[in-house]
């Protein structure tokens, strides 16, 4: 058996202890983020936080409605309860998920897009009517 010099022994010990700490911390972190642990997630955002991010719903809703929206229609994606300071990332997600449509930042006082994809909660606006409902949200069309 090879005897390591004391300094090398110390180095090995430090590295092993650090690696054990990192491994347990990682496992604890994954556990904190929640399960299921051995199931392929539906979106790339499914387990980034213990509570489900609305962005995961945005990805799924956009994927579902993409074939039903007119080409070149103007669209925005919002979570209605955040009004008037809507999360920018939702409509930007739509920008990638709906490449055949024109995506807009939500500003209903300035511009009324053809479609509003409302995540989770109903969207109440006199200029829009509900056209479809999905587990992740609803689709509204301009009247």
């Amino acid at each position, binding site marked *: 058996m090879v005897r390591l010099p004391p300094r090398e022994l110390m180095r090995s010990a430090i590295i092993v202890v*650090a690696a054990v700490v990192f491994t347990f911390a*990682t496992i604890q972190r994954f556990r904190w983020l929640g399960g299921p642990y051995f199931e*392929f997630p539906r979106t790339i955002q499914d387990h*980034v936080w213990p509570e489900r991010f609305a962005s995961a719903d945005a990805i799924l809703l956009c994927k579902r409605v993409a074939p039903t929206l007119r080409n070149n229609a103007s669209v925005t994606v919002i979570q209605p309860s955040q009004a008037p300071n809507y999360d920018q990332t939702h409509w930007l997600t739509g920008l990638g998920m709906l490449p055949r449509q024109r995506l807009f930042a939500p500003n209903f006082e300035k511009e009324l897009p053809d479609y509003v994809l409302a995540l989770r909660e109903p969207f109440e606006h006199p200029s829009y009517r509900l056209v479809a409902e999905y587990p992740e949200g609803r689709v509204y069309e301009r009247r």
Partner: protein
Amino acid sequence: MTDLLAIASYLVLPLIGIAIWRVDLVREETLAVRITIATAAGALIVGLTMALLSLLGIQWSRTLLYSLFAIVAAVGFYVRKPGTRRGSGMKFNAWLAGTIFMWLVTLYGTLTARESCGDLHFTWGPKAIRFFRAGGIDATLLQTYIQLTTDYPPLQTLLFAWSNTWSKQFSWWSAVILSPLFLIGTLLLIRTWSGDDKGTFLVAATMTWTFTLAYPAGCAEPLLLLYETMVIAALTFLRDPRAQTLYATLGCAGAAWTKLEGTTFTIAVVITILLVQRNWRRALIVAAPAALLVGAWLTFVLNAKILLMYGGAKLPIQWHALPVVLKTLAKVAKWELYWIPWIVPAVLIAIGNVKRAIVPISIAVLTAGATVSFYLRAGDPVWWIESSSPRVILTPLLALLLGAIAAHQPHHQGQALPTDGEPVQ
């Protein structure tokens, strides 16, 4: 099928960059390192070619890109020279098993969507998809949607657009899987060039933990870290001055075109080469391609009037924000583990030979300083630091970890060369 095709588009990168195997210095590397180098070169070739086509007003199409890159790969395959050695001569051991285990944990975290970067689905992805559909770098898109961090260097976006040409729809999963794929390359370079399985294991373990907090999967950091590792590891562990220059040049060019921080990294490398290695010739050679690429990109940015993030360099430093910046950065750098990821390499450097680690230490200090300088230009930097710095500080952390390996390098293995002369004893 979409995901498999998109992943395949990344797996052909080494074929596209295989011409680099003609270089004698690369031929002398192990097969694994040669594949990693060819991947890094291939990514740059794909990005540069697609950008050049846009510059010339030629629209991308599957036919055009496949033909072009098939020719590049065929020519590369023809001109390549066979490698002179197969393996590193390093045996399988418990440390290597640990490294593989750590990588598998990262792979698990990525595949279960626990490390996905938010910026992927609202910045990098949308930009790439829209570029793909426009058949080129779309200045109008960037002018319309300022939220897309419009002037960010284009390499990662172009690689995503390249993958979209393979799959009918953009594959979000292939984008996140790039993170563990590039991590393999990073670890391979460190292991082979340092010849230190123990040190590589420490890097793998540290990256596994910090990746869970930094959410790099789908962002540009995994590619950036690969290029940066190429630079730091070459300058630290390789004995051949020509090899140091070659890999530092390739790595800096790639880093500078991958992220804005790649430019500051290149500046840090050049300063280190000048001050620590005292080699102005190497500094010039390393800086030139990176400067050319950043210059070309900035010319486009200025012409298209989409200057945004680079414009931050002109903003005054707000010294009054220094305490807030340092406090917030220190909080993030804690990595929820009392700074252990930093303390461990620092202790290893302290009990080793500090002189041998001077190159990575210099790069770590300079890139950390650049990070502080970035955030000092923002009026209210807290949110910005908390959301972006876990990824940004991976660069100084990686440099420090490489320093921890270098500090324990035996005489006969590669070590830092402060000049082109004798190795530090």
